[in-house]
């Protein structure tokens, strides 16, 4: 697998253009032409591309050790279980979690729903006395923010509806950054869950996790972090951040589709009632009732996504070898080029906080082209080989707040180059002319 290994050791001070060029060789999908132009992939916020080593790891697993995990005593079953649990340890290390604090899910959406359904089951009486602290009912409040992805919004709306709790949200400043002063008025003694995103999937802005965790703790609320856009792009230490729960998706961080994870503090996970029931999650079963294993197994019913788990471990191995601080540094460089470049294209308006507002932003930048609908902008860019996301990016309330029905979003990753950013800017400068907008 030498071919797929990053070219430099993590001790290197900064990721630079030359090294990124070498890294790109690990991502064969990038070496193609789209509509007669070299592919410029600026849609990693939706899903990232994968290096060789990810599917080589999956292939290696299928070639050498495919078997069901946590059952059977034969050699392959042991090898598969080892691969599965070693991967858990690797991913846990990568996000600053304990091994037993990582639960495999299909994606972040499932992870967030898992929390909501577990609390829902507790509210219906499941889980016995240890689960009482997760019970919600009338008078309790669940709080999210006005910038959430639908996956960190609807599960809470629905949990509130099922339990009789009230759903509330923290409002945004006019520039769409989170209004932390207003947050102190929304979060109070009734707040049981405080859910918020680390990095906005639309705006790319980084929320003040420390302040939100402190606020949640001050009222005894459980904090839930959507880490989908931070785990791939920033050094992440969930233990140090002090959140109670977090969710992230493998496919956004160089890993395969179909695998994500829930992080939960071990003592919480062990006390929470299961969400999905079936094989592999029980300690004893009679015809009348069942008892459940501790976490994480109690949340991993049924045959697991073993190959995808192994692939995700290879992905975080790749990222760790490059070094997440270096990834973040390169993306900061690209993000600044995107923000400045987009702002200088006539007729283009960057959405979200100004660069001089002091709000930290990543290399995920939404914008609008005056007079041209985002869907048309995306189509025009695609004809120039530039892949971006258009639409509301699963954050319809945020777009309504921004006063637009949709936006165009460019999102970069460690394999993007300055030339990629410039290709976007060049193509954008012709969009309004093509559509006859003066």
């Amino acid at each position: 697998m030498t071919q797929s290994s990053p070219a430099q050791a993590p001790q290197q001070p900064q990721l630079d253009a030359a090294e990124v060029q070498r890294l790109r060789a690990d991502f064969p999908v990038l070496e193609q032409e789209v509509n007669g132009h070299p592919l410029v992939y600026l849609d990693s916020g939706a899903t990232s591309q994968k290096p060789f080593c990810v599917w080589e790891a999956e292939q290696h697993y299928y070639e050498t050790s495919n078997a069901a995990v946590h059952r059977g005593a034969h050699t392959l079953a042991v090898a598969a279980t080892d691969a599965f649990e070693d991967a858990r340890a690797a991913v846990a290390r990568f996000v600053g979690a304990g091994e037993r604090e990582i639960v495999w899910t299909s994606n972040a959406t499932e992870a967030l729903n898992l929390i909501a359904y577990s609390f829902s089951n507790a509210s219906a009486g499941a889980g016995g006395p240890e689960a009482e602290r997760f019970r919600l009912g009338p008078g309790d409040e669940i709080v999210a923010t006005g910038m959430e992805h639908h996956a960190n919004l609807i599960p809470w709306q629905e949990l509130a509806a099922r339990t009789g709790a009230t759903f509330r949200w923290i409002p945004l400043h006019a520039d769409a950054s989170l209004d932390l002063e207003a947050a102190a008025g929304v979060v109070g003694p009734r707040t049981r869950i405080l859910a918020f995103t680390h990095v906005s999937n639309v705006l790319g802005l980084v929320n003040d996790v420390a302040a939100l965790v402190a606020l949640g703790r001050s009222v005894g609320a459980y904090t839930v972090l959507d880490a989908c856009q931070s785990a791939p792009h920033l050094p992440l230490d969930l233990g140090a951040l002090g959140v109670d729960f977090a969710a992230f998706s493998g496919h956004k961080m160089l890993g395969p589709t179909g695998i994500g994870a829930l992080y939960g503090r071990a003592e919480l996970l062990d006390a929470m009632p299961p969400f999905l029931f079936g094989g592999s999650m029980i300690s004893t079963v009679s015809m009348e009732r069942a008892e459940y294993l501790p976490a994480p197994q109690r949340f991993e019913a049924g045959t697991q996504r073993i190959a995808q788990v192994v692939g995700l471990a290879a992905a975080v191995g790749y990222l760790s070898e490059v070094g997440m601080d270096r990834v973040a540094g390169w993306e900061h460089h690209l993000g600044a080029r995107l923000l400045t470049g987009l702002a200088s294209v006539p007729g283009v308006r960057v959405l979200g906080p100004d660069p001089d507002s002091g709000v930290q932003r990543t290399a995920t930048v939404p914008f609008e082209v005056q007079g041209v609908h985002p869907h048309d902008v995306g189509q025009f860019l695609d004809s120039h080989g530039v892949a971006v996301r258009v639409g509301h990016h699963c954050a319809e309330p945020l777009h309504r707040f921004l006063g637009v029905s949709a936006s165009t979003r460019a999102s970069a990753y460690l394999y993007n180059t300055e030339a990629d950013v410039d290709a976007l800017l060049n193509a954008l400068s012709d969009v309004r002319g093509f559509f006859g907008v003066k």
Partner: protein
Amino acid sequence: MDSLQQLYQDIILDHARRRVGAGELAGEPGEHQAQSHQHNPLCGDDITLRATVQDGRIETITWDGDGCSISMASASVLSEMLQGQSVDEFTEANTAFHELMGSRGKVAGEDVEETLGDAAAFAGVSKFPARVKCALLSWEAAKDAIARAGL
């Protein structure tokens, strides 16, 4: 002509700007009128279209909407071409337009111009499966509104 130009024919860009029949829909639909609201959650295209149908004939199509140039041009073309058409003519055109949109570029615009008029300019859209829904949105609204207005 490259595929982008085939997609965005001059007729389409022109209609996207002119928006024939577009404007605020005043009050509730009256006698012989019905309206239909259609929304594409994928890209946010949104249209409310009102049809006036009397004695099997479409008198007016008016609409209010927001969306990409394909969806707006499609509504504009419909509004212009349906004025005075019979409901049967619309049904025939609607079938032809759906066939055109499902053709993945295999049907040429010229071949359906007689039935579809300016709407034949949308032939290039069928090569872009992600945009077919944009073109069909106003047709779905028209089908729904015309059927109910003609009752």
